[in-house]
């Protein structure tokens, strides 16, 4: 018998007792929600900004038209010489006159050392955000690969304020994650950090040292 068979056999032979009913997770979050008035868009935005600031993430409110210009200004202010981006943004970023644009257009094996040693910043889209914890939902794909939000020292992330959810459960239900998860899905709350030396917090452990959220808001916000 294989190790697999042995393990499964031992588990199946164990006394079972009364099996518990399936946990009612949606019911739990519904009860949490019912105990409070429903959050407004403005409250979700404020809470998100507050929590993201707590994680040392920077939030810049931008409009749908102005964000490429705002990004150019931020890149200049932070001394960014090269900006990695997905190909869908090539046109708008070029039009905004951002210098050192670098599309992620080749497999990592072909330019690993350039990515690690010679790329100052990256721009990625997000699928939304979570207000309760100040969290970005990042789903890498062929045009915005996994390492974009990890290797460059500065990560710029575009977040649509329409896509802010109260909590993780609300986000995964509304966007029906369980049916269509990509090969890698991420939640990102601030720049990389560690407290492994004498519980002293330090930023930029292995990933980005700075996280800048470009929050797309409307006139009503």
């Amino acid at each position, binding site marked *: 018998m294989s190790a697999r068979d042995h393990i499964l056999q031992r588990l199946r032979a164990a006394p079972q007792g009364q099996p518990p009913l399936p946990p009612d*997770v949606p019911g739990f979050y519904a009860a949490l929600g019912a105990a409070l008035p429903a959050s407004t868009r403005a409250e979700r935005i404020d809470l998100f900004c507050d929590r993201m600031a707590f994680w040392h993430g920077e939030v810049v409110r931008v409009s749908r038209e102005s964000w490429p210009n705002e990004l150019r200004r931020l890149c200049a202010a932070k001394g960014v010489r090269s900006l990695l981006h997905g190909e869908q943004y090539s046109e708008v970023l070029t039009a905004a006159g951002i210098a050192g644009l670098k599309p992620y257009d080749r497999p990592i094996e072909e330019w690993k050392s350039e990515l690690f040693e010679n790329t100052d910043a990256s721009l990625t889209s997000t699928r939304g955000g979570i207000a309760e914890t100040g969290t970005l939902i990042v789903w890498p794909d062929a045009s915005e690969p*996994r390492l974009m939000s990890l290797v460059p020292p500065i990560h710029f992330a575009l977040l649509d304020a329409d896509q802010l959810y109260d909590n993780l459960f609300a986000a995964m239900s509304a966007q029906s994650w369980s049916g269509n998860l990509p090969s890698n899905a991420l939640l990102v709350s601030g720049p990389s950090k560690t407290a492994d*030396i004498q519980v002293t917090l330090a930023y930029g452990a292995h990933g980005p040292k700075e996280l800048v959220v470009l929050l797309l808001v409307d006139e009503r916000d």
Partner: protein
Amino acid sequence: MSTQALKFVPASEFKERAALAVADEHLRRSFRGAMDFLIGKRAAQFPDLAAFERQRALAEHIRKYSLARLPDLLELLERRLTENGVQVHWAENGEQANRIIIDIARSHSTRLMVKGKSMVSEEIELNHAMAEAGMEALESDMGEYIVQLDGEKPSHIIMPAIHKTKQEISRLFAEKVPGAGYTESVDELIGIGRAVLREKFMIAEIGLSGVNFAVAETGTLCLVENEGNGRMCTTVPAVHIAVTGIEKVVEKLEHVPPLFGLLTRSATGQAITTYFNMISGPRKPGEKDGPREMHLVLVDNGRTQAYSDEQMRATLQCIRCGACMNHCPVYTRIGGHAYGTTYPGPIGEIISPHMMGLAATHVLPTASSLCGACGEVCPVRIPIPDLLIRLRGEAQHDARPGHAPLLGQGAAKSGLVDAIWSGWAALYTRPALYRAFGWLATRFRVLTPPLQSGWTVSRTPLKPAKRTLHEQMAARKT
């Protein structure tokens, strides 16, 4: 300076090491300070006790439900992962798990494996097995990197280098990291680690990680971390191997948020970690990064023994937050190395006997004052004190009828103790004998020995009263 041997040492020598640790002021200050800090941070996350109780009731329910369906969920997980392009392996013990990992590494002519934090890889002593096979396994979590650099083992499951001061780490880096100067700035020390490890992420053939939650319905492995080294290990190298205990599986993705929320709040008092990494498969055609090959190694290593007993099965509810050790008055005073096991503190005392057998570990369940703090803070409500008492008993007697013997069952059995209890039972079930004993003990009280084995090490000797309680009560009535 620390006076302990900082290697894994036999758990059976626990008492000697605990005595040394208690006498080590420096070590006690390190742990006291760090544990108080973590206790405070956690408490701030749960201001509303009633809400906390509702959350942990749900979390306990999810874990119990998952365990009740464990064999089915493991098969479903295997099926989904296989569909997603992940190769699933099963290992009954550490030796088998290491062989599987080493075979994969050899098939890729591996020189270097970079590792994200994985307590299971510590449990199976993977680094040692890799070294024997002529390959390097490098820890990349900052705390794990520090303890590995100094030839040590982690002293805490969440904060591996908690026993070291900044100055010790400064000296260690200056001595062991080529090109690093002496600095006591934490930012600079982390910068040194970052630079060294980024080089390694680029050249490693294999990345290894643990798993925090494995979701059966979607075939997804979830990893919780702050640093980003876990993402590096699971994304940059061409091959990713994940290794996990069989108990980490849950049925649905919606079961993850309640557990994740309690895990980070209980562990470090954070509402969420920087990264929550959900991996459902290797690089797909057209994708430009991510591993080309992915493996999951499911490890038993004694877990099925705990599973086979309805009470001890609760041990497997654990989500490895470390809150029980942070709140344990014994752990706080002796630190993680004294236990001599991968998992220290209360959770280690109840899981290690299943992994290593009671012969080596029977003293561990006695390293508790049974104050109950571990059970009260446990986010999945494992009745740790009850399980400690149960294991103390199992170490003292043969298996009860209808129960299979545990590994090392009855290892602490003593003929003397058994004889004393038999004598005690004989006295207390025969009134005439009991009265005679009481009369003799009170009349000949001067003969009581002044040294009474372990009792008088830190207590005054026991001495019978001048008259028995029966006689005193009778005297009061008249």
